[in-house]
């Protein structure tokens, strides 16, 4: 009787171990699932769109000409609340020191994923200067 109980207990323990092992593997695979490409694609598209709008609406060229970023900041504030963006504009001759820099109000540079994209634009006509606008976008952490 005692022996029978011991075997049953051992059998239960083995079964429980196998079950837990399978569940652990399952949990591992499910937890490994990440949607980083989806988030990255969305971030890149949002950042690209923001740059295109800022160039085609003339905000980038105007900001360089007037040395004022009010329009850019106002545009950033119209973007969806979850999206943060940091813009830096560089002259073609110096890609280390931005000639202007704007961070969306209310955003902090605190992110796991970000997307950085560049776009060129021209200022002036008879004496044209070329600039690179570099924008980094990320999703706001609450």
């Amino acid at each position, binding site marked *: 009787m005692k022996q029978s109980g011991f075997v049953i207990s051992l059998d239960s323990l083995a*079964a429980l171990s196998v*079950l837990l092992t*399978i569940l652990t593997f399952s949990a591992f695979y499910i937890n490994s*699932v990440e*949607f980083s490409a*989806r988030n990255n694609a969305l971030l890149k*598209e949002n950042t690209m769109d923001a740059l295109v709008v800022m160039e085609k609406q003339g905000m980038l060229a105007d900001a360089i000409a007037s040395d004022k970023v009010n329009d850019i900041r106002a545009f950033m504030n119209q973007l969806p609340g979850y999206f943060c963006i940091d813009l830096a504009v560089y002259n073609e001759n110096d890609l280390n020191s931005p000639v202007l820099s704007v961070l969306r109000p209310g955003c902090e540079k605190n992110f796991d994923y970000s997307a950085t*994209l560049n776009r060129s*634009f021209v200022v002036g006509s008879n004496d044209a200067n070329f600039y690179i606008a570099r924008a980094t976008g990320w999703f706001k952490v609450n």
Partner: protein
Amino acid sequence: MKKGFVITFSTMFVAIVILFFALFYFGRVQREESIISSFFPVEKSGYVADDIDADINYLLMAEVDVNNGSQITYIRINDMMQQDINKLQLLDYNSFVNDVYSGQQNASVLLGLDKLVDGKTELLFSNGLQYDYNYSQESSIMFYAPAADTNVIVYDINITVNSASVLAVPWNWQDSTGDINVNLNFIDQNAANEVHKNGKLNSASLNIYRWDYGGSGSSFYIKVGSIAGNAKALQLVNSIDSSFAKVSVGIGAKTAPLQSSLKWNYDADLNYAQGNTKIGRKIGMGRG
């Protein structure tokens, strides 16, 4: 004993189903992620090409708008005429793309701008029409179909010159026998030589309207009709001898409706490569 076996078997079965589901879900999401990632280089190539198109269009300043309606197609071009255009800026831009921009995009971007910096910029329409801006000596504009007929029914010509003409020599309007309608609005700083007239011209001949600005050969010309074998063509020539003289040009050309949409691009090449993604096309300006 049997009851225990059923419970054990059921538990194991459910656990294995969960494991297979996890494996399947993991694999599927990974495949989807891979597909999503693989699209971005293609999207980026379009983004970079659009960026370059926008910059070159900005430098060359010509604006084209096409309204392709069911009754008529209207092509409108706005431009500025000045002697040196932006040839040097185009060369600078080419250097900028080679030296700076390609690196920033982590891609190979090569521009073929030879045909834009050789003294003439050519804007090509997909239906065979062509708009040339010649800046080699005097600046001139020509709207034509090479060795063919533009089939233009109406030309709207709006010119503003910031200089004062001393003499205007008109063409002969042929309102009763002409076959091409011309709406001409010409303004400069001598109100006596302004022209605001809608009339007709004979497209088989070369019709020339001229304004002289003092000094030998210092003139502005509008030519309509048969120009160097090009039927129903339009040419504007600015040989005003003043570096301050600027000419604003607005041209509208009405033709019969087109069967398909129209594209127009500069005769310049854009080649982009990043990994397996490649683009080779003309510098685009628009479609309508």
